[in-house]
């Protein structure tokens, strides 16, 4: 199983944000989380992406129990198995678009070990081009529109072809055409059976594209 969450709860401060959530996702499948703002979508995705440790319950990634893993093992899983598209894109301001896309390769050397620097750059160019950013490769984030940043962040999340793609409100700030491009990019790898997609949204239309919908 690519991702399984069992009875996951999360307290943040005195507040219980999530209570007894269970779900499962395999390669070739997609799962949408739907909830109003402030309910805990991002929190749940962070737990699935091993950024947060649940207060109770457990998370299995690619058949590995993560509860007993140490920080290095969890980092390794993040680097090699998970591609995260953050709600607030999170590009690095001092790096150009293409350099931002390549960042994950720095911490997962085995994933790109057979590629030369030039090949890595070529690959980044290709994925940015596929997202319609061929003329924005060398721009810095502050020179990009919000929608363009989101597409760069999408390219980064998919760069190492992760098995588990996690996307937090991927179509925010995007017009219909761009939203379609991003969603297509995310789903393409699901349809090919190489990856599973977990995403949060409050757009019903997008949620309906998923195999399963989880309402919080």
């Amino acid at each position, binding site marked *: 199983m690519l991702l399984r969450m069992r009875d996951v709860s999360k307290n943040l401060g005195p507040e219980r944000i999530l209570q007894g959530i269970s779900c499962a996702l395999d390669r070739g499948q997609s799962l949408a989380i739907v909830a109003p703002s402030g309910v805990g979508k991002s929190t749940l995705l962070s737990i699935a992406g091993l950024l947060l440790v649940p207060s109770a319950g457990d998370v299995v990634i690619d058949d590995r129990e993560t509860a007993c893993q140490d920080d290095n093992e969890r980092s390794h899983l993040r680097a090699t198995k998970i591609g995260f598209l*953050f709600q607030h894109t999170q590009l690095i301001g*001092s790096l150009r678009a293409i350099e931002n896309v390549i960042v994950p390769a*720095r911490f997962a050397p085995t994933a790109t070990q057979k590629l030369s620097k030039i090949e890595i750059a070529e690959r980044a160019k290709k994925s940015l081009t596929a997202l319609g950013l061929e003329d924005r490769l060398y721009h810095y984030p502050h020179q990009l529109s919000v929608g363009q940043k989101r597409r760069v962040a999408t390219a980064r999340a998919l760069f190492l072809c992760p098995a588990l793609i996690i996307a937090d409100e991927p179509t925010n700030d995007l017009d219909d055409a761009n939203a379609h491009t991003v969603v297509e990019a995310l789903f393409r790898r699901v349809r090919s059976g190489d990856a599973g997609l977990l995403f949060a949204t409050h757009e019903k239309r997008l949620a309906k594209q998923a195999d399963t919908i989880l309402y919080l």
Partner: protein
Amino acid sequence: MHRIQTIAVILTTAVSITAFVALLLLYGGMQRGVALAKERGGAQVLVVPRQATEYLTDADLLFTGVAAPVYMDSGMVEQIANIKGVKRVAAQFYGQTLAESCCSTSNEIRIIGIDASHDWLIGPFASYPIDQGLGTDEVLIGRNVSGFESGSGSLLGHKVRVVANLEPSGTDLDNAVFMNIDRLRELVAGTAQLQHFWDTYGSPQKLVSAILLDYEEGQEPYIIKNKIEAQGVRVVERSQAVADSTRQLQVVFAVMLVAGSILALASLLQFIARFYSLVWERKSEMALYRALGATRKNLKVVIGGEALIITGTGALCGVIIGLLLFQVMFSFTQSASAFPFTALPPWTVAGGVIAICLVFFCFAACAIVMPLRQVNRLDPATVMQQVDIG
């Protein structure tokens, strides 16, 4: 912003390392010069005409020799040699080349006439034994004297032959030519431009410029000194002059050392501030790296690497500028030539430079400890809350 701060730290590091490198080389060189002068410079006591001291200090007299032509009666040599407690004496007669076509050298340099068969002062510096005495056309050449590369040349209009070169001494010996004392007297007597000296002092055949001597062991030095000075001459004792000038030197260097240490402290503080902000200002960036799968160790390598580059660049610049600065100061001290100065052997320089750099790398290592601890506390989950990254 990062870049300006980084450059500032590199510059501070470079400047303090520059100061230390230059200080090391100068201080080391002077120490060595004093030690060499002690070891090889020979005579304990220098006797000069009383009027010489009107315009020369004891240190000038001892370390640089008497540059000015000063003369006293050659009978003085015999008189002093006969004083009880005087072990051995060597007389020297000073002449000079002229800035004319008389000589091989292009500038004016000193010619020192010595009695090589009684000399124990110049011999140790010579590349070839001279205890058989110097022939009328034979000369010894100081390290910095040019114009005699072919092994021969001319002095005051006469041909001479180089029989030996002198080891560098760090003193004005390096800038002098030595020849047979009687031959030099003959040559200067026949040189019209120097005639005014002989009008003042009498025929050069009966003159000496300085008498170098050693006391017998076990005699009270001040008694001998008084006896010599009773002859109407000035006595300069090496131990006293060395002690005086060494003390002066040490005061100067103590001041420089304090200044250098303040600079070093400043760069330590700069290191701490810069390395701290290396993590602090980029907390979001670092948290993102963690979220994308970087381990704590990965981040420490990133931070440590940047710190190493900053320190290394600063150290490299500092060493290069320090060596250049030393060259400038070296030629300055050489031309002013107030102290005996000998360049340090290269391996000593290398060792010193490495030690200085090591100290700065230790500073950097101390300064990086706290930022690296911060990396441990960095929570990848903070990436969810942050909006934009620098």
